[in-house]
């Protein structure tokens, strides 16, 4: 027999109330841990992905939209950049590299980025960590594609497989116009990078230009046919566009008007081992004067985004703290509401030789134990919860969020829960301490 057994039995006698209060603490701790983990992981996910880019040129409405569209695949950019503009910017400064990108097609909901092989070899999704291949190699010819790790696993892609893209990035797998005439061959699968690029597929610009050029010419032709068809036989099945005579386009047929892109990734020359260049600000200011384009410093834009999101998730954290505090209050209420029974036990313990301080300590120990058990269960719950949440996040918004909980913040939250629970025991403990012994030994009338 020892004091801990007394406390444990006291919890067991009020099993329902004890379980409910333990559950409340567990839920509060889990909520707090999951929110903290997601907050950390989300900012991590956003910090990854801009990699070693210094400047991003787009034709989007704002620099932030440009970054979210161009590097995080939020939406297909609506406005194209012309080939001439790319040439102009490329030749305006001795960039370390200038990589054109074009977004707009998708494969079963996964974005397809058309770019140059430089993207896979020079761009590093996380600075200092270039793309690596799980299998295969980079695309070298038209209609070859390299899949990001998540896109590959989600769609079960493997090297050698033929796939067909559709126009537009709509989430629906059936919707959108299919580029059925031009299957792409999967030539490489990338290793995970922990960035949004894991969701994407990469191919060269020329393939994309070719299929879009064909589409445009077919649409023009089909509009003529349609006009004829309306006169001849109404009700002509419209879905069989490709039954029309095929408009075949070769690379040589491409005009500058076909060569559209949606983004240009720029990196200035730097000293070896350094990621910064003194000229970034000057080049940023110079390009910004061109009203036809939008220039962003991706790291800065992500910093701004985090500042905005940060305010919101502090609100979430504050709510979780409120939940934690109210769980502590519920411990106190549960203990106070059982005070009449508890006082009888206290009186008996006092008669048997327990000091007032000892029964005070028993009450504090009991509430602390509720906090401790709740905190441990909460941490276990959070591990499962954040795994689920990160899966959902990856599916819904495509941000790869590792479902890990930082041990230090977890320890902090758990310690906080235990301390709050201990504090919650103070009022019941004072009541125990002050219990008039003689009165509570009498038979209950």
């Amino acid at each position, binding site marked *: 027999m020892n004091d801990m057994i*007394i406390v444990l039995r006291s919890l*067991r006698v009020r099993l329902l109330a004890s379980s409910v209060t333990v559950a409340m603490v567990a839920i509060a701790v889990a909520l707090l841990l999951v929110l903290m983990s997601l907050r950390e992981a989300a900012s991590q996910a956003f910090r990854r992905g801009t990699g070693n880019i210094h400047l991003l040129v787009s034709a989007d409405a704002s620099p932030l939209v440009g970054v979210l569209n161009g590097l995080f695949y939020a939406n297909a950019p609506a406005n194209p950049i012309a080939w001439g503009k790319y040439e102009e910017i490329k030749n305006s400064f001795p960039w370390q590299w200038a990589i054109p990108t074009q977004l707009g097609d998708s494969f079963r909901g996964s974005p397809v980025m058309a770019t140059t092989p430089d993207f896979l070899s020079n761009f590093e999704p996380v600075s200092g960590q270039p793309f690596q291949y799980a299998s295969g190699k980079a695309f070298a010819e038209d209609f070859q594609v390299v899949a990001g790790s998540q896109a590959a696993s989600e769609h079960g892609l493997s090297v050698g497989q033929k796939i067909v893209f559709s126009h537009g990035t709509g989430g629906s797998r059936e919707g959108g116009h299919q580029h059925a005439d031009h299957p792409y061959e999967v030539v490489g699968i990338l290793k995970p990078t922990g960035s949004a690029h894991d969701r994407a597929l990469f191919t060269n610009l020329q393939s994309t230009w070719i299929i879009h050029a064909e589409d445009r010419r077919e649409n023009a032709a089909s509009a003529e046919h349609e006009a004829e068809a309306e006169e001849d036989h109404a009700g002509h099945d419209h879905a069989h566009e490709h039954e029309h005579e095929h408009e075949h386009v070769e690379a040589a047929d491409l005009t500058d008007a076909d060569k559209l892109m949606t983004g240009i990734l720029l990196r200035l020359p730097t000293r070896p081992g350094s990621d910064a260049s003194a000229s970034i600000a000057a080049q940023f200011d110079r390009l910004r004067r061109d009203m036809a384009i939008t220039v962003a410093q991706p790291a800065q834009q992500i910093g701004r985004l985090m500042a905005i999101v940060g305010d919101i998730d502090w609100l979430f954290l504050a709510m979780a703290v409120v939940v934690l505090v109210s769980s502590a209050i519920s411990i106190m209420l549960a203990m106070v509401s059982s005070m009449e029974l508890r006082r009888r*036990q206290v009186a008996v313990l006092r008669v*048997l030789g327990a*000091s007032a301080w000892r029964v005070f300590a028993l009450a504090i120990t009991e509430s602390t134990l509720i906090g401790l058990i709740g905190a441990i269960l909460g941490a276990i719950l959070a591990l499962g919860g954040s795994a689920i949440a990160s899966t959902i996040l990856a599916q819904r918004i495509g941000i790869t969020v590792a479902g890990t909980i930082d041990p230090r913040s977890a320890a902090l939250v758990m310690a906080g829960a235990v301390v709050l629970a201990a504090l919650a025991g103070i009022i019941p403990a004072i009541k125990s301490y002050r219990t008039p012994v003689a009165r509570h*030994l009498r038979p209950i009338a």
Partner: protein
Amino acid sequence: MNSASSEHSATTSGIEISGLHFAYRRGFQLSIPYFHVASGEHVLLAGSSGSGKSTLLHLIAGIDDASAGEIRIGGTNILGLHGAQRDTFRGKNIGMIFQTFNLLQGFTALENVMMALMLAGYSTSQQRSRAESALSKLAIADPHSPIEMLSVGQQQRVAVARAVAGEPCVVLADEPTASLDPANARAAIDLIKEAARAAGSALIVTSHDPSLREAFTRIVEVSQFAPTEAVR
């Protein structure tokens, strides 16, 4: 309050009360110039309900405070001890039995007895062996069953075992038979007396039941300690 000095008077073991005065808010008071119960002696404290029997027991146990006087138990003035000292002293030297037993729910019979021994300062192994022997002497069939599963008779035996297991200087029984029929009341008193005798403890039993008088050689009317009658 008199000095907290606990000089032993070699002649007095058991309980020695001197110059005790206790006043209750509503005019009720107890006044005991001198009262002595020898070591191992059994005393019936008789009187109607509300006459102050329980209060006197509570004073002896140190869970109520007197305005003046001394209560020496085994030579130590319990009223001179304060806080944890008094609680520890009570745990080691005084065993109490109640009308409603006041056993702790959620604990087994064995654990109820062991808890008393723990608070009296016995080591874990001593707690177990002493509790087991006390329970077996009192014929508790299943010391490991939860207290609320036992019959009332068995519960009473556990309550007695808890009071005597530490072989205290004094056993105080407050109306232990009030909820029993006469035949069982007499059996319960014999059980308590036998347990106290085996433990070598002085015993004070309070009762308003005249039929218990024949079980005691020394009977003290509490009314003699109350100069004014109890006020309702």
